[in-house]
């Protein structure tokens, strides 16, 4: 009896582990490629930077925070950087899932770049560090690329909520059939995002975006001659 129970628990544990491994397999691949890209690009850039500061002389392109702070962080903490970066991804995915699950059917039906599928694809694109790292020439730029990716993931659920709700309001304003010009504006706003590296830049971007949406609706109201009620 005890043996049977033990066998059952082992099989259950193995099944759970296998399921968990399958569930995170797709995300894991991107995480691994991020990790590899970060290690490889850091090595390459480090060699170039060491060359620039050789013989005790600073060349025209200086190393920012040489030997300290960001420089050392990027060189030494690959696991930590990738771990944090992956946390942002998981957080953004869960917040977006929550939003689309809890928002009304109209918001879930929002099309184009405001749709859930499109947003999830965008999240994966932001999460993928490889293209951004390829363009980096210094360790500081590598750090910036990681921070920009993290900030974009942080802001994406809020952008998704704004875009989906704006699509619903626009649809309501035009009886379910907004004109092409309004749809184009919504599409443009849904993908609008300036690179941000910290919470202040995220807030600045979000404020500008919220105001742009408000301007759009003020324009619609003026066009339709809506007065104050």
């Amino acid at each position, binding site marked *: 009896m005890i043996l049977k129970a033990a066998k059952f628990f082992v099989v259950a544990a193995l099944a759970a582990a296998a399921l968990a491994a399958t569930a995170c397999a797709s995300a894991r691949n991107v995480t691994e490629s991020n990790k590899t890209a970060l290690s490889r690009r850091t090595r390459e850039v480090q060699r170039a930077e060491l060359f620039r500061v050789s013989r005790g002389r600073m060349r025209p392109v200086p190393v920012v925070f040489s030997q300290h702070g960001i420089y050392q962080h990027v060189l030494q903490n690959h696991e930590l950087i990738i771990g944090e970066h992956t946390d942002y991804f998981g957080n953004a995915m869960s917040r977006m899932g929550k939003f689309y699950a809890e928002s009304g059917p109209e918001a879930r039906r929002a099309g184009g770049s405001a749709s859930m599928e499109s947003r999830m694809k965008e999240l994966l694109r932001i999460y993928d560090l490889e293209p951004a790292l390829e363009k980096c020439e210094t360790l500081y730029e590598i750090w910036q690329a990681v921070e920009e990716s993290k900030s974009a993931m942080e802001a994406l659920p809020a952008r998704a909520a*704004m875009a989906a*709700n704006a699509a619903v309001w626009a649809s309501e*304003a035009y009886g379910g059939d907004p004109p092409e010009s309004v749809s184009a504006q919504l599409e443009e706003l849904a993908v609008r995002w300036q690179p941000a590296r910290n919470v202040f830049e995220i807030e600045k971007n979000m*404020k500008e975006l919220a105001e742009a*949406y*408000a301007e759009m*609706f*003020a324009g619609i*109201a003026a066009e339709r001659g809506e*007065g104050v009620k």
Partner: protein
Amino acid sequence: MKKAVALLIMATALCLPAFAAPSAPEMATIELDDRAVVLSADRALLEKISRWAAELEPDAARGRVEDLIRAEFGDSVEVEVFETGRAADAAGVKTIRTTLRAGAMDGLIPPIEGLSAERAKSVLGMFGFSALTVEEFESLTEQGRIRLLAGARSGRVAVIHGPDAFDAVVIHLMPEEAGEPSGKVAE
């Protein structure tokens, strides 16, 4: 075999006090038309409170349900009063506190952040919302037509009132705060 029996006896002896311990207080939520009340007390008392709450006159209890519970059942019951979305969904007078951005992101109001009061009103009017001044808002509050469930510390309030849920939405726009850049929604 003997060892197993001994272990079983020891385990039973260790677990007995846990079974003998008095039951922990349970929690229950009473939803009224203007708020949700979370209570913590033993089961018998909770059942008594539930029966009492079912007979509660909503108008008489509005805004002072915590005091009424304490007066009726004493201090042995823990009471927390919340203003929740669920409570706000119920019929009757209700208020949802939010900011312009959070309200827009939750789909409660259209995006009006950064617009002047006049332009914000035209957007709100397009969707059948009423935009009130502070004076109008306070007048309605005094008349009992709008009841603020909690202090509007955040400054900007979306108020939902009417006989049915989401019958009408009133956006209460506070005057521009000192030091804030112009262009914000103001009275």
